[in-house]
């Protein structure tokens, strides 16, 4: 499998404070790779650096063999990386349809293509079609998540980055979202998934990295990670010796 | 105030010595400049320094852009003058009332806008400046409009036991009084800024949200800073009127606000000495270069833009850069 995305030695800082140290991850074509970890571990920061929203202090990001470390986010979109940001970030005063259209901005000269893509999104996300003319800010959380997922897919990305898609959503909705992620991947798009809900993440992805306070502490195929006791205790909620089940809450570091 | 730079670090470190030096310089200036032309300029300088440090208190420390200084300047001038002329209030009482009035106006104005972004307060203060000018111009029954109020008496002669009688018809004495007031205000503001008040204001300027998490009520402090700034401008106005003898609304046109802003920006926001230097420079330079008289305002405008773009800390930043190059490894005060 060819390597689609590879980061080497990424150091990301906010001012002088290190958020991430020496992050080296890779995503091969067709894979779903996940980054799991507690709040503040640096998962979102890593993803935002890969999408081009923040600049790493040092390190290299290669996409399809090409060094994109210095490229701004809008250029990375044109190359084929799409990010669904944390908190969804629909354009609240634009309609559902307009949100989708903007996702296909890179095809703006080709109106036919954009229209075709919008139709395809409506076919996949049928609830959105009902709300096509509604202002995106009035949608429910789950509908907004569908919308931003569709919006990201409008640019027909090679790599889809998802930042905490399950955040603030009801369990049934989360199940739908992950099912959709799976079918997107089946359609040929590679996925880099950042999730706090480790259970779903490790179930959906094939490979994973565990981040703790800005560094990678474990990685490997998800099957192995799922079986790892440290991961289980920290993120998956396993019965500890005193019989307390804690779900998706990591032990204090 | 320029001589101290050549006297080495030891002097620069001592604030008390600097203060004494300032007093000495102020004392000597009228002796060095005896013509009424230059003495007049010195008084204008002192008034401009006062206006500039007042503006910087709210701009450089609290981070709020007050474009209404011309209005508060005018309010102080007209209020105190009218109190003296129409109500017979003694000069110093009128001075106090004029200053307080300007401060109150500033507080009232800023209350509306401080919870919002800085742009709103800037625009509201600009609007206030325009309105005040219009009121001064059009409320003829009160202000005599464009004709102005003339024959305004200078401050009443002070009789002190050990100094004798000090008439303020003498420009030198008037300069001492004005410069003295400026110095007093400077010291007051300086003390305020070195106290926890200054830290609070700086905290608000740097990061309002974090300041709020520390329990700082940013809005209240912004109103406070704005009120102080307006009061200082009002005080300057109270002295401007008897100095100039005739009050016309045109002296308080909006352009005045921009002139003061130029002095603060060129001198360097965020310090008190910066605007003072800027005021002195921008007051005296056009006088020295008489030929550029008409271009004065264009230069003010250019200086604002260029300083903001290339040396936002103004002359003080340039000075610090120069000093760090001259004394490599010198301590930062």
């Amino acid at each position, binding site marked *: 499998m060819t390597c689609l995305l590879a980061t080497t030695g990424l150091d990301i800082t906010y001012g002088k404070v290190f958020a991430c140290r020496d992050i080296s991850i890779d995503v091969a074509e067709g894979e779903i790779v996940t980054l799991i970890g507690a709040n503040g571990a640096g998962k979102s920061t890593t993803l935002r650096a890969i999408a081009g929203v923040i600049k790493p202090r040092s390190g290299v990001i290669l996409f399809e063999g090409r060094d994109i470390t210095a490229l701004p986010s809008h250029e990375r979109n044109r190359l084929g990386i799409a990010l669904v940001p944390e908190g969804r970030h629909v354009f609240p*005063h634009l309609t559902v349809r307009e949100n989708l259209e903007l996702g296909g901005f890179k095809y703006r000269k080709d109106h036919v293509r954009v229209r075709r893509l919008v139709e395809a999104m409506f076919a996949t996300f049928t609830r959105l079609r009902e709300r096509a003319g509604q202002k995106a800010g009035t949608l429910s959380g789950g509908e907004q998540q569908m919308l931003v997922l569709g919006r990201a897919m409008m640019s027909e990305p090679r790599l889809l980055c998802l930042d905490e898609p399950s955040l603030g959503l009801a369990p049934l909705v989360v199940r739908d979202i992950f099912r959709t992620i799976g079918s997107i991947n089946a359609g040929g798009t590679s996925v880099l998934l950042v999730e706090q809900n480790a259970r779903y993440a490790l179930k959906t992805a094939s490979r994973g990295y565990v981040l703790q306070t800005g560094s990678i502490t474990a990685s490997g195929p998800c099957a192995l990670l799922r079986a790892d006791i440290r991961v289980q205790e920290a993120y998956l909620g396993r019965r500890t010796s005193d019989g307390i089940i804690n779900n998706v809450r990591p032990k204090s570091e | 105030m320029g001589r101290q730079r050549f006297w080495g670090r030891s002097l620069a470190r001592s604030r008390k010595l600097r203060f004494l030096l300032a007093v000495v310089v102020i004392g000597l200036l009228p002796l060095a400049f005896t013509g009424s032309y230059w003495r007049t300029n010195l008084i204008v300088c002192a008034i401009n320094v006062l206006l500039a440090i007042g503006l910087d208190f709210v701009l450089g420390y609290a981070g709020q852009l007050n474009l209404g200084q011309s209005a508060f300047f005018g309010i102080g001038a007209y209020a105190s003058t009218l109190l003296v002329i129409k109500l017979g209030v003694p000069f110093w009482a009128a001075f106090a009332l004029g200053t307080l009035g300007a401060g109150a106006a500033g507080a009232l104005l800023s209350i509306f806008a401080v919870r919002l*972004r800085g742009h709103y307060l800037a625009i509201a203060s600009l609007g206030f400046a325009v309105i005040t000018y219009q009121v001064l111009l059009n409320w003829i029954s009160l202000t005599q409009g464009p004709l102005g109020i003339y024959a305004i008496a200078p401050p009443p002669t002070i009789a002190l036991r050990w100094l004798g009688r000090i008439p303020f018809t003498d420009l030198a004495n008037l300069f001492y009084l004005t410069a003295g007031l400026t110095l007093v205000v400077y010291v007051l503001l300086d003390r305020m800024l070195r106290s926890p008040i200054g830290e609070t204001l700086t905290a608000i300027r740097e990061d309002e949200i974090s300041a709020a998490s520390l329990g700082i009520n940013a809005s209240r402090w912004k109103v406070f800073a704005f009120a102080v700034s307006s009061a200082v401008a009002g005080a300057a106005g109270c002295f401007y009127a008897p100095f100039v003898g005739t009050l016309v609304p045109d002296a308080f046109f909006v352009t005045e606000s921009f002139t003061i802003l130029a002095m603060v920006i060129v001198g360097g926001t965020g310090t008190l000495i910066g605007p003072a230097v800027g005021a002195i420079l921008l007051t005296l330079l056009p006088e020295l270069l008489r030929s550029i008289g008409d271009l004065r305002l264009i230069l003010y405008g250019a200086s604002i833009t260029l300083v903001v773009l290339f040396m936002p800390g103004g002359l003080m930043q340039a000075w610090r850069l120069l000093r760090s190059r001259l004394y490599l490894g010198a301590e930062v005060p």
Partner: protein
Amino acid sequence: MTGIVLQQGINGIVIGSLYVLVALGLTLIYGVLVQINFAHADIVTLGAFTAYAVTHFLGQSYFAGIAVALAVGAVLGWLVNATIFSPLRDRGNELLPLIATIGVSIMLQNAMLALLGPIPYAFETPYSNLVIRYGGLFLTVQNVLIVVVSSVSIALLYGFMKFTFLGKALRAVAQDRETAGLMGINPNHLIMLTFVIASALAGMGGALLGPVLVLTPFAGTSVIVKAFAIVIIGGFGNIEGTILAGLLVGLIESFTTQFLDPGLIDIVVFALLLLTLAVRPTGLVAEKREENV
């Protein structure tokens, strides 16, 4: 009586539509960049003088004057963004660009003063003296021209924002700049586009204003406070609100001139501005939008 009210109503709409043209530029820029170009009104003045020069010195038609003023405005907008707003982006105090443009405004005004003098210029167009009378109402063709050109421009702008990709991208950048970048939209290009459009509108507004206002280098200042007030009353970044507020201020101006005193106009508008800030800072007249307050 109704005749007077109607007449002033018409006058108010005429002057109001001019104010809308000027204020729209300000609100567009604020919407997309959360900044104010203080020199905006001076672009209006320059537009007026440009149109004057084109018609009186070059002998071209008034429409040519309007077109050139539009172009001059566009170039100035490009310049101001390239030299001031772009370099100062996200650097330090958010008020720095405003201060820098205050400097530009002072320079422009006084440069014009030095070149053109303080005496008002009589900007006559072939249309200022053509009068239409209807019933008891009085309208110059210039007035009609103003309303027509303003309305067409505003409609075009509205259409652009609502129906074209670029227009929607512009609205997206205004709502969420970072996310817009994720869509492949280059925010810098769109900010520049906004400046060009906004300043072109200002220049054109000046060309239309020239024959109607007192044309001196300070013509801009008389408009700018009202323009700011309109933008605040209508809501920063809110186009519908700006249009409504602009017409409202125009009507206030004409009715205050007729029934009270022209000197009171600024005071009434300013009072309205304070009211907005006190009661509803997101804008008095249109739907509530929580952005950037």
